[in-house]
């Protein structure tokens, strides 16, 4: 389907919001840096198991823009590769949680009756547990790994989408066009996917953007607690945790990694806010 005039009108309105444009710029830079990390990072080799004790613990200077860590690795390079880890985590987690939660919410909200009761009670159980604690429990059961961290965060994240979509479906299914499609004999799948889902899409997309920041934060929290990707994979949360041992002398370790997390969360939140404003007015 080609982009409609409504889409371009929405884009123009988005472009008029300076904070939203700033957010989009931040996200664009981070995503590009993560994709092109090998080309962009000053010392790509420092992302791995690299050791250079001669240049260890150097504060930020012209050679090492954000300084080096305890074994001489360039912090900026590790942050750029850390973004790759974080974005892969965010996309994977939401890539699982959004379709899963959306499907659960669609089915629960449209089917009603027993199916709805089962889906929404399961959702409630997940929502009742604090997400970080649940994710820690899941990761703690096994050996920490990046895959497991993603699975754990996805497991605590999908119920939010189930509840969000469920609520929208409950009201949309009473709309005339849904009634009309049902009476003409359209299948439930066609009605859910073709008629109801497009009306949930803007809200899901907005939440997706806001959640990218939050998932990155939760992933960083897990790795801060030692439950993230194992060394030597560069991970922003792990970097904050490691650097915290050297505060306040080698302040740049924690501050730059923490700032990097902050920047990512800020960027995605600004984009999410901008999208929400755009979609709110189009209805």
């Amino acid at each position: 389907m080609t982009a409609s005039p409504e889409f371009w009108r929405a884009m123009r309105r988005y472009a008029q919001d300076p904070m939203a444009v700033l957010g989009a710029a931040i996200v664009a830079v981070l995503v590009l840096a993560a994709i092109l990390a090998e080309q962009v990072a000053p010392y790509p080799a420092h992302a791995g198991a690299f050791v250079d004790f001669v240049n260890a613990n150097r504060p930020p200077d012209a050679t090492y823009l954000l300084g080096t860590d305890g074994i001489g690795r360039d912090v900026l390079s590790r942050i750029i590769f850390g973004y790759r880890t974080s974005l892969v985590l965010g996309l994977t987690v939401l890539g699982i949680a959004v379709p899963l939660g959306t499907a659960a919410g669609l089915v629960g909200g449209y089917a009603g009756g027993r199916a709805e009761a089962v889906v929404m009670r399961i959702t409630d159980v997940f929502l009742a547990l604090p997400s970080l604690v649940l994710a820690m429990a899941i990761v703690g059961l096994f050996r920490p790994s990046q895959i497991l961290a993603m699975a754990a965060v996805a497991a605590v994240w999908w119920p939010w989408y189930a509840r969000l979509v469920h609520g929208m479906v409950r009201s949309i299914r009473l709309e005339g066009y849904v009634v009309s499609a049902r009476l003409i004999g359209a299948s439930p799948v066609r009605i859910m996917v073709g008629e109801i889902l497009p009306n949930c899409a803007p809200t899901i997309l907005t939440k997706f953007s806001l959640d990218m920041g939050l998932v990155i934060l939760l992933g960083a929290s897990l790795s801060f607690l030692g439950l993230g990707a194992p060394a030597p994979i560069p991970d922003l949360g792990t970097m904050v945790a490691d650097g915290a041992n050297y505060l306040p002398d080698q302040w740049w370790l924690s501050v730059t990694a923490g700032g990097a997390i902050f920047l990512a969360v800020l960027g995605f939140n600004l984009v999410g806010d901008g999208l929400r404003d755009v979609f709110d007015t189009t209805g």
Partner: protein
Amino acid sequence: MTGPALLRVCNVTKRFKLAHAELLAVDDVSLEVQKFDTLAIVGESGSGKSTLANLIVGSEGASSGAIWLGDTELGARRDKATRRRIALVQQNPYSALNPRKSIRAAIELPMIVHGLGDRSARRRKVDELLRRVHLSPALAARRPLGLSGGERQRVAIARALATDPELLVLDEPTSSLDVSVQAHILALLLELQQELGLTYLFITHDLGVVRVLARRVAVMYQGRVVEEGPVEAIFSAPRHRYTNLLLASIPTVSDEDDGVKLDWPFEQAIAPPPEGAQGCAFRPRCPFAIAACDTTRPALLGEDALHRHACLAPSRRDTTAQGTGGIS
């Protein structure tokens, strides 16, 4: 009668189970609609007219009784071939079209569901349907966002016609439109009926619209049909007292008075019939009731072949005064 009945509603009853009670929304209703005819079902809110429409279009199943479309029985579960033959035009054109889909996609959906024609055939059909409802085919690519209520209702009518239905159920199709737009939609419906040989079942509370569009009228009160007959007979010589009330309730501006005139000694409040009530449901509001009205529920009896009513103390045939006030 003019021809074979297309739609036959036979002793249909619909009960809703509420938390503490049971609501008898449609109570033993029998009706027939001839092919190419227009039957209007009128009544106030809660009279059961919308529930009856829901039973016919199949969004709900009857508690008892049967509905027939030609030789096919219309239950709540019906096959696609049957669904194709009935289409619904809803009251609210703003909710009837998906805001995120193009008008072409909206009109195309019934054809896709029923596997009618390939892509280019559907495309031609959408253009043709838009022209039929006097809209430009250029509109097809747009979404409903910028359309007026009248334009939306035209699109909804075009969509209803997409499967070439025989029966169109029109649920208050003009009540949420401006008066000037109403007239255009009514003219369009009349034109389409002529051109396509459609049969209309028309649910409304607007008697002015009934006069324009319908040939027969069924008056419903608390789930029952209390009077049924040709439009002229109902308007000029109503027999049931409730029909009198409805006709008298058409607001008229008379020359002598300044304001709107409503002089009829009926209670306006709807009193729900007491538990296990035996008599006429309209008894609590009827100033003409006789003793028998308390004990006997009047049956819908034919006064002649075309005109039936269920009233033990009907208006005399020459009572015409109340029928003159409508918008004609």
